[in-house]
């Protein structure tokens, strides 16, 4: 358990250390603080205003929303910007999200099982701390709150992957910056305002009451399985796997989805912070890139198409009947290297 007195000591230490990240080993304090902050939303209720900015090569996207969060897993967001989202709101109840598009008078109901999966989250936390060093960084005031800042540094490359500003008192992450391998900020999330509250009324988090609302209709779910092999088996075709992965990456999840009648196998790899998805199908369904600006990439005997979408990258190619899409927050060179290693 992490003690408040230790937090305080860490905070004082930072004042003495000044700006440079220390060379001290991360120790249980930083890891413990990181773990507490990861779980903070499950025990804190708050209202606030958040600003999220995704920086991309050709486009940056800023989203501003008011947030109401009731521990452990009820969240309501009211969008203020961009203009196209103004007035729209979303409600997340555990793994189910209701996205209300006011302008078009529609609700999009989505289910994301990974959001409520504490076991997976804890496993991935282990993965994170095995691949990243957690170091203290200069604190800063965020939304009027005193914070403790932490740097997450990739142990293999030495690069800063993420910087977190954690509320010293409550341990909630108030600001977060993600960095690409070239050091550029790819994503920033920051509270402009925050107020902790004990008593957000539950009715605020009721799903929208809709006449004729039917849930789950048409959804394609496959029985969860604990091992990758059964997922691959469910795909029903001889799948390809990468032989090369960047340092620290491991397979963490798999799923099989039918998009109409096209069965897609999805394998998810992660190093605890970054993720990589490999999608494949054996029914000749190519990736439609008509809505994206693409670059042709030649590797081995293949011609692939590369897309940069904000900080996310995608490489699509096919090998006889198998069509692949590799998606991640990795560089083009890394994606090509991984794609080159895919073999049945």
């Amino acid at each position, binding site marked *: 358990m992490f003690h408040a007195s230790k937090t305080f000591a860490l905070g004082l230490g930072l004042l003495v250390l000044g700006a440079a990240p220390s060379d001290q080993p991360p120790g249980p304090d930083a890891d413990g603080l990181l773990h507490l902050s*990861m779980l903070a939303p499950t025990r804190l209720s708050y209202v606030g205003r958040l600003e999220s900015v*995704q920086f991309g090569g050709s486009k940056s996207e*800023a989203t501003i929303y008011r947030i109401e969060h009731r521990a452990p897993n009820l969240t309501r967001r*009211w*969008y*203020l*910007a961009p*203009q196209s989202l*103004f*007035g729209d709101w*979303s409600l997340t109840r555990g793994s189910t999200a209701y996205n209300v598009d006011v302008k078009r008078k*529609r*609700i999009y109901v*989505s*289910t*994301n099982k990974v*959001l409520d999966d504490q076991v997976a*989250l804890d*496993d*991935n*936390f282990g993965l*994170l701390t095995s691949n990243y060093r957690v170091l203290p960084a200069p604190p800063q005031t965020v939304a009027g709150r005193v914070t403790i800042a932490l740097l997450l540094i990739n142990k293999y490359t030495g690069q800063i992957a993420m910087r977190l500003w954690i509320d010293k008192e409550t341990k909630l992450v108030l600001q977060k910056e993600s960095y690409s391998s070239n050091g550029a900020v790819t994503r920033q999330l*920051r509270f402009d305002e925050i107020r902790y509250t004990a008593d957000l009324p539950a*009715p*605020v988090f009721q799903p*929208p*009451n*809709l*006449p*004729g609302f*039917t849930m789950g209709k*048409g959804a394609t779910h496959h029985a969860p*399985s*604990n*091992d990758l092999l059964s*997922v691959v088996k469910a795909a029903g075709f001889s799948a390809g796997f990468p032989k090369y992965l960047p340092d620290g990456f*491991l397979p*963490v*999840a*798999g*799923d099989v*989805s039918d*998009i109409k009648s096209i069965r*897609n196998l*999805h394998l998810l790899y992660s190093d*605890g912070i970054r*993720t990589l*998805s490999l999608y494949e199908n054996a*029914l*000749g*369904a*190519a*990736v*439609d*890139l008509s809505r*994206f600006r693409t670059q042709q990439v030649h590797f081995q005997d293949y011609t692939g198409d590369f897309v940069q979408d*904000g900080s*996310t990258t995608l490489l699509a190619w096919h090998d006889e009947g198998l069509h692949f899409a590799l*998606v*991640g927050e990795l560089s083009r060179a890394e994606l090509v290297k991984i794609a080159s290693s895919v073999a049945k």
Partner: protein
Amino acid sequence: MQHPTTERLIDYIHAALAPQDDAAVHMHLDECSECRQEHAVQIRLSEMLRADAAAHERELPPMLKAQIWNAVRSLEPTAMDRVRAWLRPAYSVPVAAALIVAAFVAPGYLHHNASGAPSIDAAYYLQDHAAMNGATPFGDHSGSAAAQFEETSNVDQTVLHAVPVVGMARVSR
């Protein structure tokens, strides 16, 4: 009396009903806790919108990056119009009552190219991948916020079904 529709409740909150209808809703609320709860939700909704609008009137949210600040700033008049439109009476345009539930299986992702072979929109893969980030600590699961509201964004999220590979991600420390 039947439960009033959400639309009717909103009109009631904004005192836009004819006197006898107003009285009927008032009486119903007195005896129906279900509708009282919905009533409270709708009041809160309206108040939050008003608060947002009031805040908006004073200043736009502070932005870190000048370019984005400018972009948002240029939207101000239009956004303001929308706020005004959102406050009574436009908000009583039945947000909930007229909501159409989007189909769970969206046709949007599957296309056929000229040769007749099917293809899958790359946006599906990008969004599905973004959703998976919810399993990583400090991950952003939603990807692009706008994508959550796109016509074609529903299929991935319902079909999406993550299967943690237990043991593989467990790291001995």
